[in-house]
């Protein structure tokens, strides 16, 4: 009998060649899997790919939609990248995004904002809302060693319930015919968009600038250095006098605040109101965005666009081919698995032998 053994071990460094090979292999595998899926459903794969491509990247409208959806993913993703770099496992970007949306929406709806300052105040409110929501688990972790995975995850659901309470209850608009929506925010509180699209570019610019700044922070500043040391070795960070709790709180404020900005962007740039289902899980998807970008804020720009195009493509086949939403989830999930496969192949080496 021939025994085949498989070993996995982490690479010390990943060469460019390995990166290219692993990306090509994963893409190929993803295409094969998806072709099979369409085949089973009796849909012509070429037709489906064409629809997906046209809807996401092959048309002006598709590109604009991809960029629009990449905005919240980018903001949440770069923040999470920084938190994960410190091995602080913030799973709560979704809730932080919702809190940002609630605070900025509340400001826009119920406070007499000076029109010139309305937008900066809304963004600031969004940042603070998300940051405060993240601060709770951050303090619990820093001061009482409470596991942040559980707390941040749970706080997503609390944030969602608060949003539902508000839009079904006290904040429900007068002219929304019973829908769980608030009234629309005043026009001076709405973000400008690139004409003919839904790209609310102020938020996009904030996202891009954050990515660049955070990249710089991680690689060139003392704070970033501390984040990297903590992420590698807590014992070494103690030895070096790095204050663990301060860094934990800081990265949580950064990632929570940026998620909150994403929420503000959705309210002021897309929906122009608060409503049930304001985020289709951007905060969760951003976890994958962050990892796919290898926790490097600059690469997260690319990964947020890639994932956004998949989301848009998924929506497109739902509409144009009439596949059920269950299939869309399957489709998105399959692609994500192969993206993670790529990550795995480039970080680890696999040795197969008899």
């Amino acid at each position: 009998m021939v025994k085949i053994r498989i070993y996995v071990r982490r690479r010390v460094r990943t060469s460019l060649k390995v990166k290219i090979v692993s990306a090509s292999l994963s893409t190929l595998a993803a295409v094969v899997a998806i072709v099979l899926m369409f085949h089973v459903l009796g849909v012509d794969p070429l037709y489906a790919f064409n629809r997906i491509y046209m809807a996401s990247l092959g048309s002006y409208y598709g590109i604009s939609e991809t960029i629009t959806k990449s905005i919240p993913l980018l903001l949440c993703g770069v923040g999470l990248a920084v938190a994960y770099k410190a091995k602080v496992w913030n799973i709560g970007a979704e809730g932080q995004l919702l809190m940002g949306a609630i605070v900025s929406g509340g400001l826009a709806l119920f406070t007499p904002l000076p029109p010139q300052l309305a937008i900066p105040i809304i963004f600031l409110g969004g940042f603070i809302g998300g940051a405060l929501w993240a601060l709770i688990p951050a303090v619990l972790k820093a001061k009482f060693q409470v596991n942040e995975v559980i707390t941040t995850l749970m706080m997503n659901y609390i944030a969602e319930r608060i949003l539902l309470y508000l839009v079904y209850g006290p904040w429900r608009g007068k002219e929304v015919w019973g829908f769980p929506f608030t009234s629309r925010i005043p026009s001076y509180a709405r973000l400008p968009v690139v004409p003919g699209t839904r790209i609310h570019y102020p938020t996009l610019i904030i996202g891009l600038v954050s990515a660049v700044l955070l990249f710089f922070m991680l690689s060139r500043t003392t704070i970033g250095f501390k984040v990297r040391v903590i992420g590698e070795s807590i014992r070494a960070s103690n030895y070096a006098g790095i204050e663990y709790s301060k860094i934990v709180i800081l990265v949580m404020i950064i990632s929570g605040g940026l998620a909150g900005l994403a929420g503000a962007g959705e309210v002021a740039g897309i929906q122009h109101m608060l409503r049930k289902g304001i985020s289709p899980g951007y905060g969760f998807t951003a976890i994958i965005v962050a990892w796919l970008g290898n926790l490097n804020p600059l690469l997260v720009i690319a990964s947020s666009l890639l994932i956004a195009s998949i989301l848009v493509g998924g929506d497109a086949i739902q509409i144009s081919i009439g596949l059920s939403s269950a299939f869309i989830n399957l489709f998105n999930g399959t692609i994500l698995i192969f993206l993670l496969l790529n990550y795995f192949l480039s970080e680890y080496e696999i040795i197969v032998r008899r």
Partner: protein
Amino acid sequence: MPLVKLKNITKFFPPNILANDHINLEVNVGEIHAILGENGAGKSTLMKILYGMLQPDEGEIYIDGRKVTFRSPRDAMKYGIRMVHQHFMLIENHTVAENIALGMRTSIVNPLKEVKRRIREVSDSYGLKVDPDDYIWQLSAGEKQRVEILRALIDDVRILILDEPTSILTPNEVEKLFEVLRRIRDSGKTILFVTHKLKEVFQISDRVTVLRKGRVIVTKETSETCEEELARLMIGEIAVNGINSNKSNYSGNGVVLEVEDLHVLNDKGVTAVKGVNFKVRSGEIVGIAGVAGNGQRELVEAIVGLRRAVRGRIRILNRDVTKASVLDRLKLGLAHIPEDRIGAGVVPRLSIVDNILLTRYFEKTFTLNSIIINYGKIREATREVISRFNVKASDISMPASTLSGGNIQKLIVGRELSKNPKIIVAVHPTYGLDIAASSYIRRMIIDAGNKGAGVLLVSEDLDELIEICDRIMVMFEGRIVGEFSRESFEPHTIGLLMAGIGGG
């Protein structure tokens, strides 16, 4: 026929390190074969090749005369080869039994009960005392090593490789280890014993192979050679023996470190430091002698700020720092050479440059407004440490984990001493270093003292303490049980006090 035969083994690390250069080595059944060489000679690399962790660029391995190719340790294990590494590879949050079960080759399903039974069986037959239910984090270095050895013995091992097993052990533990090794040999197994300590070659080995700069210089019967010969072969020229400790006079200098009625708890919540008092003056080198586990670790951690004092005071430069953070103390000019070099002293996956920054990131010279790091400056400082302390590194942007064990130690010591500290707390600063590097480091410590630093030197190596200290305090069961000034060093009495005999 030799049990193991290595033929022309060559290993090159880009860009320019030839770690093993056409190595030929034969190991016989049932012998303890010492591999002797300075830091960076290529000992660990060669052993990792035999263990399948590294693949040679050239050369062949023969076991029982049959040519073999090892692509991973699994392959080597099939031939009964097991290695205990220079640094521990145990999972701290698991028990001894769990760790051993994880490493076992024999079967995938091994009920813990069965594993524990095997542990007891093996530990009884070789005299390796361990409790299978202890957690790894509760164990001392010596105990951890016993677990590593046990883990190797529990599968049927034929060839046991030990990479510098004594560098983290107390003299007493070394004795016990040697007894165990002799028993293992007498049961017909073969041992490869890596070291840079001449004394140990004669204590334990049957044959010895000397490596220098990646080459085999000679293989000899241990009984047919002597320390001088081996030293010459290992270093290449006769080592400058002894150091001229032109120590300047420190009396009358200010006190830089003062400890008063200090009480500290250990990890298990038991008082480990019980009312310690002492002062260190600028320019003075004070030694703490003692067998490991008598409160030295807790004392050091309290002084540097890693552990809370439950009673008493600590003053640095006349400032009360009992409650101050590690950072505040570092900023006052404290340097700390930690006991656990891989776990605390470096971040293995970060670059050598980042590791120099590790305890200096708050210094004005290396940052703009203490926000932006000036990597130009820190690279310069890195190159300086590397050349002054003779750290063998090919590329300073490579991860620190690519350095050899001794070179990591040199990097840490170099980093701490080149900060121009006011107080140096050094724990075993020469652990894992060869003769030349050790004596160089000792001289650098004396130099630091002459420049005005106060030094607290914790070591179990009495010779080292006697060589460079102005004063030695003996610590036993959490108390200072004896104090000697340079004029009145009595190794014999100190030794007895360390063992808890005499004093009062």
